[in-house]
């Protein structure tokens, strides 16, 4: 039996902007088992990062607010947790890798000290020297020689800085790692090194990971499960195999059609027309209907539910079940 570590139910997060409401995350359900990697894929403004901030209890309030739903982590509802409880969990049990390593680090602090700080904070009673020793070990773990403990972030290249950010996140052996576009700012060869490192560490430490990205290539390499998010809603969710080989939602199909391929012959791309709807003014029915080629009147009338179209494969589309032969 797989053990559930994180369960998000009906999570809704909104930002109030002047006189209107920005519906960033709408009734999201997600589940993550121990040791598993879930890829959360979507475009800019889809609500990916807001979900991660929600889990961390870091949604800026005001203007943001968790309006409803629960985030159950290891039996505790993080939405109702007190600030003190959250402070103890953040960095120790759940930690986050940010997209931009250039801004995630403190430029005037030695990198080793930035790692030590986390360790000291979560291990009361540990001596400074012990914490420093552990920080050195963590540096070595991500492939940076411990001699570089006393250097500052500007002395490292982009890939190395991201390794330090990973070291800070892993310093307390968290159970859950939220990685928000961890390799987007890096060159492909460096990205390959960092992904390899993350995969290795995850296996070694049995950490669960929520990988937020827009890159379906990265997801194919890293994730067992995938959730596709569009305009704050999960539109398709399942095993990687469901998403890649048995794509059900037209938006997911559109994403694949937009990707030029290194492997195949050059064929014209089939992009999704139009733009994502304004989160201040979401359509009443299916959020994707205005851009969808298959959209019918029924799609526009009322919200479309997320339906399990095969064991473990969920899709939010009225026409998902009609496609013949997907499961033959």
């Amino acid at each position: 039996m797989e053990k559930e570590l994180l369960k998000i139910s009906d999570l809704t997060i909104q930002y109030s902007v002047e006189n209107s409401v920005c519906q960033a995350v709408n009734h999201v359900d997600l589940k993550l088992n121990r040791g598993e990697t879930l890829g959360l894929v979507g475009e800019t403004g889809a609500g990916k990062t807001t979900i991660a901030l929600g889990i961390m209890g870091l949604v800026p309030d005001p203007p943001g607010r968790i309006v409803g739903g629960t985030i159950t982590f290891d039996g505790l509802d993080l939405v109702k947790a007190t600030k003190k409880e959250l402070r103890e969990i953040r960095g120790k049990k759940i930690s986050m890798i940010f997209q931009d390593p250039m801004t995630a680090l403190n430029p005037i602090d030695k990198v080793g000290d930035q790692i030590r700080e986390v360790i000291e904070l979560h291990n009361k009673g540990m001596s400074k020297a012990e914490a420093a020793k552990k920080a050195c070990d963590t540096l070595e773990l991500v492939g940076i020689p411990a001699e570089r403990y006393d250097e500052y972030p500007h002395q490292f290249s982009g890939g190395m800085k991201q390794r330090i950010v990973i070291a800070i996140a892993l310093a307390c052996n968290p159970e859950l790692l939220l990685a928000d576009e961890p390799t987007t700012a890096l060159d492909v060869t460096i990205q390959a090194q960092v992904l390899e490192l993350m995969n290795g560490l995850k296996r070694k430490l049995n950490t669960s990971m929520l990988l937020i990205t827009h890159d379906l290539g990265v997801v194919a390499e890293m994730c067992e499960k995938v959730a596709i998010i569009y305009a704050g809603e999960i539109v398709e969710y399942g095993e990687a195999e469901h998403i890649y080989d048995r794509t059900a939602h037209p938006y997911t199909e559109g994403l694949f059609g937009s990707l030029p391929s290194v492997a195949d012959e050059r064929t014209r791309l089939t992009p999704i027309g139009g733009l994502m709807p304004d989160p201040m003014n979401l359509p009443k029915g299916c959020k994707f209907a205005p851009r969808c080629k298959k959209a019918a009147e029924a799609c526009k009338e009322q919200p479309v539910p997320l339906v399990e179209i095969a064991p473990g494969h969920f899709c939010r589309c009225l026409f998902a079940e009609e496609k013949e032969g997907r499961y033959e």
Partner: protein
Amino acid sequence: MSNLLEVQNLKKYFETPRGLLHAVDDVSFGIPKGKTLGVVGESGCGKSTLGRVILHLLDSTSGSISFEGEDVTNPGKTKLSELRRKMQIIFQDPYASLNPRMTVTQTIREPLKQTGGLSSGQIYDKVDAVMETVGLASRFAESYPHELDGGRRQRIGIARALAMEPNFIVCDEPVSALDVSIQAQILNLMLDLQQERELTYIFITHDLSVVKYISDDIMVMYLGKMVEKCSSKGLFAEPLHPYTKALLSAVPVPDIHHKKKRVLMTGELTSPINPKPGCRFAARCPHAKELCLKESPVLEEISPGHVVSCHLVREMNH
């Protein structure tokens, strides 16, 4: 076939407090009219500098550039303004390359006003026409950049470049800042425009799948040097340089059944300041031998149209 643009032994060095930075080091190539040369490489390999030197936004250190059969390495003032019209650039960041205080039409109109010779009525017509060409609805005419999304902003950048009716455009990472669904729209637009107007592109990018999609020929750069150049098809079918191989194998493929034969490179780019003799890739190359550290390899044509700069190319690829 005659080439629209011909570059010979082009070098661009920057003086820095620590010595000479070899940003572009002895690069030669030609692009036939109506074709696209893709330039790929990692950040800091000199690909953007190359584009800017060709456009005379930066002066070259040595080497020659000829355009439409004419040497334009050191153009006079009149020649330069003619070149400015024929050669345009589309920048990477549609957020930073537009003036936030100018509306869409003002931005597109600006270059037309600079060249002179057009009445204001003609300018208005032209702005309308070019907005339609790039798919910008006329209701955005008086919008400011901050009111538009990234895809539309990049369309303004393209419209601004097209307004001058250039025949050559340097596209410097034009889709890197965009989401995939929008990226695909812009790439298709650029291909359509190329066909309609017989445009010649230099397409600078770090994204290998994009470069494969859009280019006829591809040049791979590493620390200012061209390490391999080949037709797009040939490069992906049979990459010969160890750097190209590593680069291609590093691209994550959106297919869960894809078999990875990853060539993991150790280390990162070395400094392009006062580079040591020898192959610049040697420090990261899994095959490097003593010779590679001593002597710079020269470009060799391995098969027609496929040039590689590597001492061991024949040895490694039989």
